[in-house]
């Protein structure tokens, strides 16, 4: 404790434990497999574009699930797509995280009552870490959600599996 855990100055070099360094590495370089299914995909693309650059946080979209850390489920998850979502989630290497973007993937959204084709929340298929509300969420809201995920990663402990499934 004490000097070893203190910051030298704000925004400068931080001397800390190996756990913190590893967590910092994981949260500074989250590579999403942007799973853009519907309208939220447009907002996700807008967030990755120049106006609200996500590359500032080190977030580059990867095409393949094998190379990505976080899966941003953006859009309505239908039953047909649900199988594929599950399969792609299983193809991601651990440690992996899921961020549910928009009302439809959070809880079925506008289709919760009468949508016979919609999975009422992607958390019924895969374990979700952060839910970003909105229909669709503003790019700033998505950035806020990703920062919340960063906070979660920051607090992770060695050797504790973070997902139940």
């Amino acid at each position, binding site marked *: 404790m004490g000097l070893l855990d203190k910051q030298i100055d704000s*925004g400068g070099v931080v001397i800390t434990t190996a756990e913190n*360094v*590893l967590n*910092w*590495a*994981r949260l*500074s*370089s989250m590579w999403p497999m942007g799973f853009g299914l519907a309208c939220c995909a447009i907002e996700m693309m807008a967030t990755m*574009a*120049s*106006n609200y*650059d996500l*590359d*500032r*946080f*080190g977030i*580059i979209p*990867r*095409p*393949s699930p*094998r*190379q990505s*850390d976080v899966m941003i489920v953006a859009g309505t998850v239908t039953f047909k797509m649900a199988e594929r979502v599950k399969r792609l989630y299983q*193809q991601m*290497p*651990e*440690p992996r995280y899921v961020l549910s973007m928009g009302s439809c993937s959070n809880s079925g959204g506008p289709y919760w009552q009468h949508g016979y084709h919609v999975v009422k929340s992607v958390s019924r298929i895969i374990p979700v870490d952060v839910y970003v509300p909105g229909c669709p969420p503003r790019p700033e809201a998505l950035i806020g959600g990703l920062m919340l995920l960063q906070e979660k990663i920051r607090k992770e402990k060695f050797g504790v599996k973070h997902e139940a499934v």
Partner: protein
Amino acid sequence: MHDLVLKTLGIGDLLAWLGVPDGSLVYPVVASVFPLVFLIIFALLAVYAERKVSALIQNRLGPMETGPWGLFQTTADILKLIQKEDITPKAADKILFFVAPVLVFTGTYASLAAFPWSSGFVGADLNVGIFYLLAISSLVVAGLLMAGWGSNNKWSLYGAVRSTAQIVSYEIPAGLAVLTAIVTTGTLSMNGIIRHQEGMWFGLLFQSPFLFVAFIIYLIASLAEVNRTPFDLPEAESELVGGYHTEYSGMKFAMFFLAEYGNMFIVSGIAVAVFMGGWLTPWGTEPSVLMGVVWMILKSLFFVFFQMWLRWTLPRFRVDQLMYLCWKVLIPIAFACLIGQAAVEVYL
């Protein structure tokens, strides 16, 4: 070379003080670690530079949050890739899957053995230096094919096969362009080629129009050799998910990444050595040994930047356009340059 490296950096003295006998294998082993270290540091900075350059071209800021101005971004990337689970698909060919990234990286690292850092700093001053360099970069092709086939994934296979066709085809204009310069220098040894350019402003580049065109052809062909845009169809996302590296995760993927950036540096280095005077100063004089290294690296870095610049300017080629460009445009022009330069040499 290893004597110079070790002498300049004082490590030779350190090892001698430690009691390592003269002429033992420890010296070359330690000396050969230096290109590896350079490769890793270069890849670190090149990935960061690419992200920043691409960002500024696109009117945005690149990595900013990971340390001041995002300088620790690549470190974070590598640390994260180390922590990832290493997945081998169940139906993949285990040996091929494992060896592919190793082979691709080996092709890159082995090229650094004959890379002319400076007049004293050459790993092995072969008298067939340039031939060796062109040949060893073809080892990468074997690695790519292994990656594509071994992944047991149709996208990987398509990507690998397209990549192989591309690399093998573009080796011809690249070789012909280099041959145009060899016709002038008369020697295949790297340091010999560079020494021949002493006294010329910017080396062989402006000596003759044929050499200038040959240089342009070599630049284009080398882009195709390293799978950079506009020739990056094998990695195109919208076409092939990820091409030959779709199924790789974690450190194996990091190897492919490292090899790609290493290759960028090597082909820039070859272009600089053959056409622009290598480790000579731009006005043709021979600098000191250390300054030679500096000049070599600076000139190569300029062409690495050129490759990044070109990447964010042009859209990618379709595979048939790519083949058309190689066989119907670059090869005839390269032949013409070769014959023209040979004529110039004989008659002038």
